[in-house]
């Protein structure tokens, strides 16, 4: 008896309960889980940070070579008297001896070489100069001179605004 009564109660109550449940159920929402993506991004970032390399910036000095001879210039070509800068190696590879051949000057360092070259050049600011800016300047290093000193001599000539600077064959 109780069962019948309870069944009747359940049958009349079920549709209302279902309606109430339908009204309160929220629609399903799609969510993107970002955690894995962030992990991958950080791994990539760590890789690029570790493999990045920073170095000092490099520039250039423009030099002329004689064309097609197969060797650097070993004989100067006048008409002008070339300025010959001889660089000799010393016991210490850090140092070198610099001589201006035929001019009787031996600068102690490349700063002094620049000063001498600038003083010798004839231009608007220096009428006492002897050599024109396009006068040939030949750098004659010996075989054991470091490349650093050769480029330094070249730089000194370029600083002094000589436009015709070249290298000679290595001397003994």
């Amino acid at each position, binding site marked *: 008896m109780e069962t019948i009564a309870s069944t009747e109660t359940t049958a009349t109550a079920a549709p209302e309960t279902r309606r109430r449940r339908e009204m309160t159920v929220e629609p399903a929402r799609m969510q993107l889980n*970002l955690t894995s*993506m*962030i992990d991958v*991004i*950080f791994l*990539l*970032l760590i890789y*690029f*940070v570790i*493999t*990045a*390399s*920073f*170095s*000092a*910036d*490099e*520039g*250039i*000095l*423009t*030099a*002329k*070579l*004689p*064309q*097609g*001879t*197969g*060797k*650097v210039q070993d004989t100067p070509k006048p008409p002008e008297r070339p300025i010959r800068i001889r660089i000799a190696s010393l016991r210490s*590879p*850090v140092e070198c001896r610099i001589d201006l051949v035929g001019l009787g000057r031996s600068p102690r*360092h*490349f*700063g002094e070489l*620049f000063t001498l070259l600038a003083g010798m050049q004839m231009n608007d600011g220096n009428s006492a100069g002897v050599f024109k800016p396009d006068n040939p300047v030949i750098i004659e*290093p*010996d*075989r*054991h*001179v*470091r*490349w*650093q000193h*050769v*480029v*330094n001599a*070249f*730089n*000194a000539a*370029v*600083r002094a605004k000589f436009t015709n600077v070249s*290298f000679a*064959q*290595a001397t003994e």
Partner: protein
Amino acid sequence: MTPLIDVTFQLIIFFMLINNIITDQTVEMIVPTLDEPKTRRFEDEKKIIVNVAPIEHVLPGQYNLKERRDSPLEARDREEIGAIRVGSTEFKLQGGNNVVTIDVALKGLEDYLSAQRKADNEIEVEVRADCALLYDQVQLVLAAISAAEIGTVHLVAYLPEDAR
């Protein structure tokens, strides 16, 4: 969370760009440091970089480039060319496998540059040589470049401090 991801992407892009393809053209070495340099930047796309590398490049286990930075010219035993690299072609003169003689390397360099010059007469050549190399060695490379009928080269050195 979104701004964090944005910043992280920015950092990734930055580091990807600085790890650029051009580093593949250069070999790690110490180029000359000059007194009052008159060097200038050179960004021509048609340039060819001739790397004249010291022995560290081919025998990295025996020599440490980073240790040499304090006194780069002191290296008595690193005065000779270890390798000449131009583009993706490398001629190893010392250090293990695929070693060639200096004559073969210079001829290869001359042929490569001649071919490039014939393809484009306006190419520019940069000579990037280690500061400790002897002039005796580097002048051979200059002679090979000259034999390829290239009249102008650019010598690489560090920029002035204020230009870096």
